[in-house]
C-alpha cells in the first residue's frame, strides 16, 4: 500500500515535470496577439503596478499571486516571467488529474488538448481557474467539503467560472440530501475583493471613478462578443456554434467521449459532480460566450478526462493514450511560438511603435472585436513611461470615462476637442489592421475618427442618449 502511494506520487510528479517542460518549450517569450491573449498586457500592469484588473470579477487572487511571483523571480522578459505561471498551473493540473484518476489517460487528454496548450503558453488566468476547480473537486471527493467549497470560493477570486463548480457541488449535495452548511465556506473569499477598491486609483483605467455607481458600472459594463454566439442570437449562427462545439470537444477529447458516455450511462448519479463541473462551462460557452472565448471550456477538458478514465475498457484507453501522444507531437509543430506562430512578434512591434508616438497623442484603435489588446498595451505603455496616449475605441462609448492620466475625460465635447486639436498638432493616429493579429499605427484625420464614433448611427441610436444622460 505504501509502495503504491509512493509510486503514484512519483508518477504525478514526473507528469508535472514533463508537462512543464513541454509548455515552457512552446511558450510565448513576450507579448502576443495570438491565442486570444488580449488580457496579457493588462495582467502585466496589475502584476507590476497593482492596479485594478478586468471585471471577471476582479481576479484579486490571480493579480496578487502574479505580483508576488514577479518580485521573486525573473525569466527573460517581464511578460515571460509572469506567463510562466500559466505553464506551472497547467502542469500542476496534469499531475493532479493523475493523482485523482491514477490513470495516465486523464493527464494525457489534458496535455494534448490544443485549447489547454494555448492558454498554458501565454499570460492568462484560465489555467489557474481550472486548477482551482480541480483542487476543489479533489477535496470534495476526499470528503473535505468545507475545504472544497472554500477552494472554489478562492477560484471565484480568479474567475467567475469557478462559481459553476459551486453550483455543481451544491446540486450534488442537495440531491444526496447532505447538509448544505459547508457551502457557506464559499463566501469566506469575499474579504479578498477589498483588493478592487484598494487598487482603484487615478488614472482609473478600469473603473471610471471611486463612487459606488462606478463600481456598479465596472461589474455590469458591457463587453463585445459576449452573447454574440448565443445560437438564437442571431438565429443563423447556430451552425457556427455547433462547429465550435465539435472542435472544442471533438478535437480536445475525441474518442474518449465514448468512454465518458459509457461512464455516465453506467452510473450518472455517482459521477454527477464531475459531469456538472465539466458540462456547465461548456454550456456557458455555447449559450453565452462568443467562439473566441473557447478558453472557458478548459474545465470541460479536465473533468470529462476524469470521467473517461472511470469506465473499464482497457484497450480503448490504450488507443486514446497513443493518439494523445501523437497529438502532443502534432501540437509541437502547430503551436510553437516563434517558429509555427507569431514569427514576427507583431504585438511587440506594436508596443515599440507606441514608444515612437509624441506625448499626448490620441490613438484610435480598430473598430473590432479584441481591440482591447491595443487598449491594454497602450495603458501599459502609459504606466511604464508616465506618458499620456489617449485611446479612442468602442469602449470609449460604453464606459466613457477613465481615459487618459487625468481620469476626468467624461464629456463627449472634451473628447471631440481633443481629437480635433490632436489632428492640428499631428498627434492623431489610428491602428491599421486586417486582423487583430497585427497592428500598425498610422496617421489619421479627425473626420474619419469622429464619423466612426460620435457621428455614427450606432452611437446616435444606442449610446448617445445614455452618455448624454451621464454628461448632464
Amino acid at each position, binding site marked *: 500500500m505504501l509502495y503504491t502511494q509512493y509510486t503514484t506520487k512519483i508518477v504525478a510528479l514526473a507528469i508535472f515535470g514533463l508537462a512543464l517542460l513541454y509548455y515552457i518549450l512552446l511558450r510565448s517569450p513576450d507579448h502576443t496577439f*495570438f491565442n486570444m491573449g488580449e488580457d496579457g498586457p493588462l495582467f502585466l500592469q496589475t502584476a507590476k503596478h497593482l492596479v485594478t484588473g478586468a471585471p471577471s470579477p476582479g481576479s484579486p487572487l490571480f493579480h496578487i499571486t502574479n505580483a508576488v511571483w514577479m518580485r521573486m523571480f525573473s525569466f527573460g522578459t517581464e511578460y515571460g516571467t509572469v506567463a510562466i505561471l500559466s505553464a506551472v498551473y497547467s502542469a500542476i493540473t496534469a499531475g493532479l488529474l493523475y493523482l485523482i484518476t491514477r490513470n495516465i489517460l486523464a493527464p494525457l487528454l489534458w496535455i494534448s488538448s490544443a485549447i489547454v496548450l494555448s492558454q498554458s503558453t501565454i499570460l492568462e488566468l484560465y489555467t489557474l481557474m481550472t486548477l482551482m476547480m480541480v483542487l476543489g473537486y479533489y477535496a470534495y471527493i476526499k470528503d473535505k467539503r468545507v475545504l472544497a467549497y472554500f477552494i472554489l470560493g478562492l477560484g471565484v477570486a480568479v474567475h467567475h467560472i469557478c462559481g459553476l463548480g459551486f453550483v455543481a457541488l451544491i446540486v450534488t449535495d442537495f440531491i444526496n440530501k447532505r447538509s448544505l452548511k459547508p457551502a457557506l465556506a464559499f463566501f469566506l473569499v469575499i474579504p479578498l475583493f477589498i483588493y478592487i477598491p484598494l487598487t482603484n486609483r487615478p488614472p482609473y483605467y478600469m473603473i471610471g471613478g471611486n463612487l459606488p455607481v462606478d463600481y456598479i458600472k465596472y461589474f455590469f459594463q458591457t463587453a463585445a462578443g459576449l452573447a454574440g454566439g448565443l445560437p438564437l442570437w442571431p438565429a443563423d449562427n447556430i451552425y457556427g456554434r455547433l462547429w465550435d462545439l465539435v472542435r472544442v470537444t471533438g478535437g480536445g477529447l475525441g474518442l474518449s467521449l465514448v468512454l465518458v458516455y459509457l461512464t455516465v450511462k453506467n452510473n450518472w448519479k455517482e459521477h454527477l459532480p464531475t459531469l456538472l463541473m465539466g458540462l456547465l462551462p461548456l454550456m456557458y460557452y455555447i449559450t453565452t460566450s462568443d467562439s*473566441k472565448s473557447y478558453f472557458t471550456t478548459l474545465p470541460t477538458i479536465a473533468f470529462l478526462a476524469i470521467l473517461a478514465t472511470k469506465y473499464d475498457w482497457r484497450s480503448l484507453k490504450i488507443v486514446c493514450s497513443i493518439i494523445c501522444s501523437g497529438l502532443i507531437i502534432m501540437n509541437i509543430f502547430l503551436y510553437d511560438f516563434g517558429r509555427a506562430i507569431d514569427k514576427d512578434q507583431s504585438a511587440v512591434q506594436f508596443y515599440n511603435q507606441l514608444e515612437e508616438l509624441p506625448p499626448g497623442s490620441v490613438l484610435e484603435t480598430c473598430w473590432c472585436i479584441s481591440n482591447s489588446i491595443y487598449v491594454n498595451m497602450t495603458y501599459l505603455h502609459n504606466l511604464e513611461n508616465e506618458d499620456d496616449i489617449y485611446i479612442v475605441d468602442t469602449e470609449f462609448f460604453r464606459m466613457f470615462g477613465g481615459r487618459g492620466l487625468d481620469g476626468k475625460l467624461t464629456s463627449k465635447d472634451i473628447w471631440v476637442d481633443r481629437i480635433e486639436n490632436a489632428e492640428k498638432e499631428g498627434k492623431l493616429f489610428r491602428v491599421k489592421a486586417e486582423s487583430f493579429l497585427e497592428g500598425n499605427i498610422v496617421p489619421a484625420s479627425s473626420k474619419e475618427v469622429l464619423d466612426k464614433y460620435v457621428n455614427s448611427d450606432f452611437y446616435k441610436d444606442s449610446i448617445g442618449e445614455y452618455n448624454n444622460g451621464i454628461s448632464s
Partner: protein
Amino acid sequence: MELARNFLVLLSIPLWILFAWLAKPLVTGVEGLTTWTETTISSKNALFFFNIIAVGMLGGFIASRYRNRKPIYITIQALTLVAVLIVGYVTSQINTIWLT
C-alpha cells in the same frame, strides 16, 4: 456486435485528429476577426449570474411539481422564473454592433 463497435471506434480515430487539426484557427485566433461583420455586446457578469439563478429556478420549478398544492407552487415558481429572466435580459444590456 462487439466487432462492429470496435470497428466504429477505429474509424473515428482519424476524425479526432481531423477535428484537432481544424481547431487551430479557433485556438490561435486567426479566424476571430476576418469573417465577422457584426457582434453583440452585453454585460458578462449580469448574464453569468442570471444564468445561474435561472438554472436554480428551473430546478425549483421541477421540484414544485412534486409537492402538494401543486398549482400554487408551480405558479409561484413559474412567475419568479419569468421575472428573473426579464430582469436578467434588461441588466445584460444586449446590443448588436456592426464592425465597419
